[in-house]
């Protein structure tokens, strides 16, 4: 039995990508020479048109897929042992992807169960994670009994339950209505603020990227390359007021113009 890695809550994992390229059989080049450095604890948004290789990139970082060439390194300042990588990572998909035969609590505890954490310990951790996403009173319900927004929060809790140091999210709130999405964005930002993990957040939405991230990477259309790597000047505190501030609007314009350029296929 492994204990929940308590060191996990301290700091995030850094990331180095050098000329990462992924070509699929049949010749589609999804990602073409991406270089990127992410510092531990950074919140980075990745923006780009559909099909530009964002998911491919994220999957490669998660170790679910291998780049055809290039260097991809996770830098873990707190790593005590090697091969610890699996449990330090968490991944959130566009849809919740819960197990319909498990109730909310057991869905959230699932990662710990697979890692061999003892039953009472993982139940505690799952309860804690669910409270963080405001679902403390829905633990006995089944996914079919939840709304889309609640399911997504369960999915987020499932990702947070291992106290990941690198959280990868692939358009997690894209299927939700605007208000729900804004609320979840604020919640995610709060989670990050408290836990201090590194976050890579893939999105189509300029508004979401500008609101959430400290840094936004905009990609060209396929084959994906980086148009701009932009540091946002919005400060650490984000709230409803952020969305109406002048800086926010200005940052959105910067991202919008970069997306336009990327869509014409012009890299930086």
């Amino acid at each position: 039995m492994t204990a929940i890695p308590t060191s996990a809550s301290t700091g995030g994992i850094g990331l180095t990508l050098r000329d990462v390229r992924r070509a699929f059989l049949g010749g589609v080049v999804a990602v073409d020479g991406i270089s990127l450095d992410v510092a531990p604890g950074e919140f980075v948004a990745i923006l780009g048109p559909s099909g530009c290789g964002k998911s491919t990139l994220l999957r490669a970082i998660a170790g679910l897929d291998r780049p055809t060439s290039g260097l991809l390194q996770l830098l873990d300042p707190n790593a005590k042992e090697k091969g610890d990588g699996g449990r330090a990572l968490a991944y959130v998909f566009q849809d919740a992807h819960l197990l319909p035969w498990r109730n909310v609590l057991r869905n959230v505890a699932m990662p710990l169960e697979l890692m061999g954490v003892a039953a009472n310990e993982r139940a505690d951790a799952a309860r804690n994670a669910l409270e963080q996403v405001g679902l403390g009173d829905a633990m006995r319900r089944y996914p079919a009994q939840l709304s889309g927004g609640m399911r997504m929060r369960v999915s987020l809790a499932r990702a947070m339950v291992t106290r990941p140091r690198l959280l990868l999210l692939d358009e997690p709130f894209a299927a939700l209505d605007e208000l729900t999405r804004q609320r979840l964005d604020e919640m995610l930002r709060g989670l990050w603020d408290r836990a201090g993990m590194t976050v890579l957040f893939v999105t189509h939405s300029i508004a979401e990227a500008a609101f959430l991230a400290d840094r936004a990477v905009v990609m060209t259309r396929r084959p994906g390359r980086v148009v701009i790597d932009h540091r946002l000047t919005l400060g650490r505190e984000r709230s409803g007021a952020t969305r109406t501030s002048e800086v926010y609007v200005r940052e959105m314009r910067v991202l919008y113009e970069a997306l336009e350029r990327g869509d014409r296929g012009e890299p930086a």
Partner: protein
Amino acid sequence: MSIAAWVKRLLPPVTPLVVVFAAMEVAVRMGWVKEFLVPTPTSVFHALFTDGAGSREMWEALLRTAEGSFAGFALSAVLGLIVAVVLTSAGWVQRAFYPYAVFFQTVPIIAIAPLLVIWLGFDLRTVVASAFIVSVFPVIANTLAGLLSVDPALRDLFRLYGAGRVATLFKLKLPSALPSILTGLRIAAGLAVIGAIVGEFITGGGLGGLIGVARREQRVDKVFAILLLSALLGVVMFSLINLAGRLSLRHWHASESAS
């Protein structure tokens, strides 16, 4: 459920039955149809319930056939599941062996049943084997389809958290495949009854054996009575699996509890 609800539910399927029975009864009594071709429902009822030793023989035969069908079905369920799991263990295994699993679907059981008797003898084993052969393929095919259509995102998640093959099988693949498995079992249940009866044609005994006897004696009332009993057996097995399915899938769909 209230009595009114039950009535509402049973009325549609029962009405055609009553109409057909009444028509049969009238047609035979009026002499429009010869009694040795179509029995009156009352004579079928007589054969089933009030024919003394004859009736008892029939219900005992039902139990025998039930035994053979259940055993054959259980064998199909267990072996079919195991075969499907083994087939998904590697791509080459599936390519190598699945074509032979398909073989079971195409076996003309009438033709092969006499062979089974030579191999296994004139007893229950032949009946069970016959029920197994005709019912195993739907279990294999449906389980396989279920195991292969697991949500790729969930597979990724299990990989990410370092789940082994066994954990992935029991915590992800088999539960995901449950609806497909139940579909396979539902089909297999009906086929197992047919397989058992065909086996009994050759071995004698059970409903199949009794049908042979009744046919030779030109007792259409008995033949119909036996048909009713085999239908009853099929319905019971089907309902049991439906019940099991309803219970095990009750959390999957929000509407399930309402229907």
